[in-house]
């Protein structure tokens, strides 16, 4: 595995933005530096006879009320714009960042007082602050820019402070303190580099804002003073002669828009490309190929099958824009009242399987093959409308983290009642009544009272009970539970597993139980499918799987589980780590980590008689412990 940095800004869609922006800004800088040589006329030279002329060969952009050449004034305006942006932004950074970092790190009274002053400044309209500061300092470019610098320093102060506050809580800062780094070292060496990315973005935003503000101040006459040419003062003139020479407003206005736009777009690209998570592992080659098809055993239809998945295949779009296969050759069935466990480590594709059944993978992914038969009907063939009816009524889902799978903005009772009203067409009072009954049914005392609680007011276990109540509100045939106990403490997990068992007895639904924990699967499942790298490697009834695992990966997982052995180290391990999607070996995907791998494992292996291993009969991995 050789992960590389992906340079986002080298992608075509970004280049299309980058190139013009950089060109505009480069032109601005060149004009600013060489204004005296480039501009055809002296920007201050008046010629009253040829005042307010439209564009012509002599004056490409016409002349203003005093007969001065507009093009020359525009070019000299670049210089002012550049100076303004550099001065004000520089002052803002120099004042804001150190103070922000200091108060963020120091906290206490320093922080409190500084932030009250900042709040006070921010609650006065920015232009008014600038006007007041200019009242003290007097008018003129440099003074006005000093005023803007002070004004925008509050933005940098708050940015630096919030980054320090956020990073201070990060574990790596804790580590640095444990190592014994002094506070100033923690601040400068460990935290400061993390300020740089948002700082750069904020600088571009500020440059844009400064350009607009400078133009505004000059426009109302307290920034750059006439006769000096700034884009703002030029617009001031244009406003006065709006009806006589409407063209006058265009050149300086467009110059401002082009400059600010370029700076902002550049800032957007920078922000996107330095955002966390962009730098991901990418496959060394270009497009990832679809896994070769194999002739696995078909899923035997059973009398009371509720769900039968056949040859499911899913691709998702990675952050790099490439399509990556995450599921292949996935087949299983679940009968009425039965619980099938889908067990695997992170990245095995177990969660996406649940979502694929629900057709809820989202915009980033698509199902490219296979069937999802619910009671004999292929869900993949249903219209979007029919699928909406199926969800909730026939198939429901419980998610891993109960505190995020309930909407924080509504009471839990409201969220259950909503489903009852929408899906079962109940009236408000009846829905209310059944909601309380459901909450009571999942073992929450004081149901009527608890219905009025918001999710954040409940413990994790309580919230998961509510989520289960909602999922079962329409009595679905199939319940998909995606790691429903992983976020909970073990004693709470036990209670929730009991609840699932009781409810299944009562409602008789089939369950697809997704988990990474083999022990949990042992407790709740009737049959188990073990997943590895996007495919099922073994399916077996629960007793058989634990007594005689047939795939080396299953055997390895069992013996590597903390409860799997009772001895002291060295504990049994599986060498290496789970390959990420896109990095799967071509043949047997476990072969790189498998102690039994041979040349025969170099080709795709089908799932035959419930196991995907060419040597399973011969090696009999069994249980190590």
């Amino acid at each position, binding site marked *: 595995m050789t992960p590389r940095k992906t340079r986002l800004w080298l992608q075509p869609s970004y280049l299309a933005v980058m190139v013009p922006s950089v060109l505009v800004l480069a032109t601005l800088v060149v004009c600013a530096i060489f204004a005296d040589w480039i501009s055809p006329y002296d920007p201050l030279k008046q010629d009253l006879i040829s005042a307010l002329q439209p564009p012509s060969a002599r004056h490409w952009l016409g002349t203003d009320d005093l007969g001065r050449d507009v093009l020359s004034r525009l070019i000299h305006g670049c210089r002012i714009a550049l100076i303004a942006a550099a001065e004000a932004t520089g002052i803002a950074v120099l004042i804001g960042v150190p103070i922000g970092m200091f108060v963020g790190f120091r906290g206490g009274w320093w922080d409190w007082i500084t932030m009250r002053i900042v709040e006070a400044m921010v609650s006065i309209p920015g232009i008014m602050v600038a006007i007041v500061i200019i009242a003290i300092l007097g008018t003129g470019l440099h003074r006005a820019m000093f005023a803007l610098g002070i004004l925008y320093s509050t933005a940098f102060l708050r940015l630096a402070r919030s980054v320090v506050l956020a990073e201070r809580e990060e574990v790596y800062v804790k580590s640095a*303190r444990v190592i014994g780094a002094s506070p100033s070292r923690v601040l400068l060496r460990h935290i400061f580099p993390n300020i740089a990315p948002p700082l750069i973005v904020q600088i571009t935003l500020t440059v844009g804002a400064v350009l607009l503000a400078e133009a505004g101040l000059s426009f109302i006459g307290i920034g750059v003073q006439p006769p000096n040419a700034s884009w703002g003062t030029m617009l001031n003139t244009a406003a006065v002669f709006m009806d006589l020479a409407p063209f006058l407003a265009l050149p300086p206005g467009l110059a401002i828009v082009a400059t600010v736009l370029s700076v902002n777009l550049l800032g957007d690209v920078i922000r996107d490309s330095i955002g966390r998570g962009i730098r991901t592992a990418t496959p060394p080659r270009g497009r990832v190929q679809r896994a070769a098809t194999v002739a696995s055993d078909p899923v035997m239809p059973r009398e009371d099958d509720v769900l039968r998945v056949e040859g499911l295949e899913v691709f998702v779009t990675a952050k790099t824009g490439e399509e990556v296969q995450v599921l292949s050759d996935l087949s299983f069935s679940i009968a009425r009242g039965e619980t099938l466990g889908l067990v695997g480590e992170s990245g095995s594709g177990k969660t996406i399987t649940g979502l694929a059944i629900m057709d809820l993978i989202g915009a980033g992914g698509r199902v490219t093959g296979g069937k999802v038969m619910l009671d004999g009907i292929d869900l993949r063939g249903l219209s979007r409308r029919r699928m909406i009816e199926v969800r909730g009524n026939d198939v429901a889902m419980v998610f891993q983290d109960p505190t995020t799978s309930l909407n924080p903005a509504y009471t839990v009772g409201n969220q259950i009642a909503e489903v009852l009203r929408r899906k079962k067409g109940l009236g408000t009072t009846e829905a209310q009544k059944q909601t309380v009954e459901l909450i009571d049914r999942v073992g929450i005392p004081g149901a009527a009272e608890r219905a009025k609680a918001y999710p954040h007011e409940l413990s994790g276990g309580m919230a998961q009970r509510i989520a289960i109540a909602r999922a079962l509100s329409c009595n679905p045939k199939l319940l998909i539970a995606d790691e429903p106990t992983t976020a909970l403490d073990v004693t709470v997990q036990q209670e929730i597993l009991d609840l699932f068992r009781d409810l299944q007895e009562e409602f008789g639904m089939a369950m697809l139980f997704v988990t990474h924990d083999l022990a949990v699967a*042992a*407790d709740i499942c009737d049959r188990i499918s073990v997943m590895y790298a996007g495919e099922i490697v073994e399916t077996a009834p629960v007793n058989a799987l634990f007594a005689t695992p047939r795939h080396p990966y299953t055997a390895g997982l069992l013996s590597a*589980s903390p409860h799997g052995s009772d001895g002291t180290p060295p504990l049994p391990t599986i060498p290496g780590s789970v390959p990420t999607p896109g990095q799967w070996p071509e043949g047997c995907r476990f072969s790189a980590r498998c102690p039994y791998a041979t040349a025969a494992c170099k080709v795709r292996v089908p799932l035959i008689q419930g196991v995907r291993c060419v040597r399973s009969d011969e090696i009999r991995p069994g249980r190590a412990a």
Partner: protein
Amino acid sequence: MSDLVEIVDVTVTYWSRPGLGLRPKPFHAVKNATLAIATGKTLGLVGESGSGKSSIANALLGLVPVGSGTMRFDGQDLAAMTGGYPPEVRKRIQAVFQDPYSSLNGAMTVEQIVSEPLRVHTETGAEDRRQRAAELLSLVGLDPAHLGRYPHEFSGGQRQRIAIASALALQPRLIVLDEPVSALDVSTQNQIINLLYERQEELGIAYLLIAHDLALVHHISDRIAVMYLGHIVEEGPADRVYHAPAHPYTKALLDAVPLLDPERQRQRRAERKRETVPDLPRAADRGCAYSNRCPFAMNRCRVEAPPAYAVQEGGTAACFLLDENEKETRT
């Protein structure tokens, strides 16, 4: 021989910060905890979320102040060092934290991360530091050629190895391991556990291993302590606590983890007492903190807090069931 770490009667208190004019309220994350870690040995500290196990770690690392009690490390009282630990103490206590994704600074290279302790505490030159960093990487099973890489280029297990390498850099006497493998996949967890065990055998470091899973802790701990809502309810030799728990909470914790054997698990489930009131999160107001959930709770438990009673096979448990008088009256 005296222990490397002796924690006696330690309380850790956090103060809530309400709005203007309101008085801050105390929250006791750890109450009167007493623990000891012998040189070169491992103490496993187990509990559910909110039990206070991480607060003990933070107190020992000097990250939160100790409210009362003493905390001796190598004979020095750490609890009295209010102005932070002096460097000679600091360099002998290191830590590895749970989340391998946020515990490494993404802006620093592996070499910088691993050699940072050397820069802070020693006068080692750049070349020596690099060499030492390479040694450390091979010590934790990573390729020294990867010194120039950034953390995001590694998997969770590899990152945890980097964190361990950094913790080993100063040859500490104690490493606090705060849930070092709970964010990792099952198939990589044991790799890290084995690594920790091997380095301990070689270098004679003591570990405070914090985790929520008793089974996992049991593998490499010499002693185990169990916490419940700020109290240490049981402490003793690892095998004794794991196989013959004395406190009802420890039993409940062990029973709550499903067995890997479906047949035996079914049996155990049938025998288990179902709790009538689900999900009681907070401690009982008076008496034993566990008394509102404990199936064996007596009247006395709801009034009086149990002291630590000696357990015959070793260690202690804070439960009146171990009181000789109680045993007599019950039999």
